């Protein structure tokens, strides 16, 4: 029998997200589904590097802690879990999850892993044909080593896993929204070409995909936008009806706020053309969306529409692209800004004398212009302290390290009276996107069932 409405909770919105609010939501949210979204553009590439070093890893590092905290409640209350914590290795994540369920002695559980978003071999075979979305050049124009290629899968595979009775569905790279759309499609038997319903469903999914960003996270601006008990932010859930109408809310007694204002910020902040937001499942039209307050921390979401899904899927390519060296040093007291500026001049002179090979150098004055550069508003008076930050990109590790060392030697050989510097050198894992025809992406689903 079809349900009249289902409740989907958002338990995570990035790899390192908080666990205790997710466990609170699992215990007290009266949920039907709990979704953990943990992949950013670069997270999957880093996970691939980790899997390359150790074939048993490459899934979300907090999967175990998250599931240890939440699965007991999900199991007791019959809450199904959908997550992309599989990252670069959904199969290893499945095995780990089965072990956790057995260790916790939970009731028999069917766990599914969606495999097939990894299209590295296909992309390497087609470097001359695939065009980079950001530059328009062929993939072969990139010089570094390609370490990962992961397609943004849609909800269809997760729906299939739910139809086969999965209680927990683990994926790798998929569109964030699709994790939330899958339970809606499965429960309400939405057709894969019912574009307007899928579009409205995806609007509701979009509200939850950044977790607490809709319930008061990243919203507060004292005097303008107040958020009660921000330190105890409650994670959101949404009630979805068979026609796609959604009502978003959170567990009573938790901190945060849900209002048309928080929903509008969340809805717009990662789309481009609002009438044409491309997801693997449907092209979403946000322009008719209405956000209606129904009460404290309760907002109704209606009016989303959709158009036919794309024939190609976006693929994130991870590529090693040189090194970044960073170093920071603080000057304080009277005349600090002049000493900081002299420090910059000294480092630039040292780069010249030492013949450092840098592709790009950036110098920031933290406290004055580090985030907005020349667009920063000028301060009314000289600050009491200023931190100078040097950052460079170089083809090799050595030159990045040398820049950092030049900043380090400012203590003792630069202007007087500074802090000790902090330096950091790291390899760049850059991300580019290409489009790959759906037919080239071969997926399958692996299942495992636990027993008492």
């Amino acid at each position, binding site marked *: 029998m079809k349900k009249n409405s289902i409740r989907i909770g958002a338990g995570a919105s990035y790899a390192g997200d908080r666990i205790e609010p997710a466990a609170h939501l699992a215990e007290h949210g009266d949920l039907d589904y709990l979704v953990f979204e943990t992949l950013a*553009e*670069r997270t999957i590439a880093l996970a691939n590097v980790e899997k390359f070093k150790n074939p048993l890893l490459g899934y979300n590092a907090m999967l175990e802690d998250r599931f240890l905290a939440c699965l007991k409640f999900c199991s007791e209350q019959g809450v199904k879990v959908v997550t992309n914590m599989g990252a670069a290795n959904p199969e290893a994540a499945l095995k780990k999850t089965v072990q956790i369920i057995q260790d916790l002695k939970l009731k028999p559980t069917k766990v599914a892993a969606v495999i097939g978003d990894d299209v590295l071999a296909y992309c390497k075979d087609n470097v001359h044909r695939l065009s980079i*979305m*950001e530059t328009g050049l062929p993939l072969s124009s990139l010089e570094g080593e390609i370490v990962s290629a992961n397609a943004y899968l849609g909800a269809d595979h997760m729906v299939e896993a739910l139809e086969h009775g999965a209680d927990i569905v683990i994926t790798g790279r998929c569109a964030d929204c699709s994790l939330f759309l899958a339970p809606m499609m499965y429960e309400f038997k939405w057709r894969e070409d019912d574009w307007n319903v899928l579009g409205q469903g995806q609007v509701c999914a979009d509200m939850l995909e950044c977790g607490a960003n809709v319930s008061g996270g*990243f*919203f507060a*601006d004292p005097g*303008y*936008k107040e958020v009660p008990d921000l330190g105890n932010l409650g994670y959101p859930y949404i009630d979805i009806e068979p026609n796609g109408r959604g009502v978003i809310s959170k567990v009573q007694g938790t901190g945060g706020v849900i209002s*048309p*204002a928080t929903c*509008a*910020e*969340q*809805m*717009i*902040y*990662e*789309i*481009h*053309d*609002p*009438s044409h937001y491309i997801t693997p499942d449907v092209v979403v039209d*946000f*322009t*008719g*969306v*209405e*956000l209606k307050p129904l009460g404290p921390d309760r907002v109704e979401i209606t*009016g989303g529409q959709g158009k036919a899904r794309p024939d190609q899927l976006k693929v994130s390519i991870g590529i090693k*692209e040189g090194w*970044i060296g960073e170093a920071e040093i603080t000057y304080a007291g009277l005349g600090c800004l002049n000493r900081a500026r002299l420090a910059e001049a000294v480092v630039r002179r040292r780069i010249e004398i030492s013949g450092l090979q840098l592709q*790009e150098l*950036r110098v*920031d004055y*933290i406290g004055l212009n*580090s*985030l*907005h*550069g*020349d*667009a920063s*508003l000028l301060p009314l008076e000289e600050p009491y302290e200023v931190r100078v*930050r040097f*950052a*460079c*990109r170089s083809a090799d590790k050595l030159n990045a390290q040398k820049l950092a060392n030049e900043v380090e030697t400012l203590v003792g050989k630069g202007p007087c009276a500074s802090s000790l510097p902090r330096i950091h050198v790291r390899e*760049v*894992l*850059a*991300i*580019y*996107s290409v489009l790959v025809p759906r037919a080239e992406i071969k997926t399958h689903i692996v299942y495992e069932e636990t027993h008492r």
Partner: protein
Amino acid sequence: MRFYLRELAHARAGDKGDTCNIGVIAYQSSFYNLMLTQVTPERVRAHFKGLVKGDIRRYELPKVHAINLVMEHALGGGVTRSLSLDPHGKSYSALLLALPMEVDEANSQILLALGRKPLA
């Protein structure tokens, strides 16, 4: 009277590759028209003083009295390559809200009644 955009609207920035977008939502529907006439791609480009190297497009969402500014080549070569401390450009929403706005008499009175201060 002139006020910062901050008095009229709130905003959040997002990222995809080297593209930054900022959703700007008017606190009241009467402020929305002011945004339409004054928060133009040309003014935004000038206000960002060289931070945006590509096209700026503006989309309108009148039902939630919001606009969406999409700024290409605005994230120092892309989130993953940028040397910026804010590679995602998440703080760009605050920069945008420092845009000065000419506010008509009726809306100025609304802002003053809310305790908002005009620009000198």
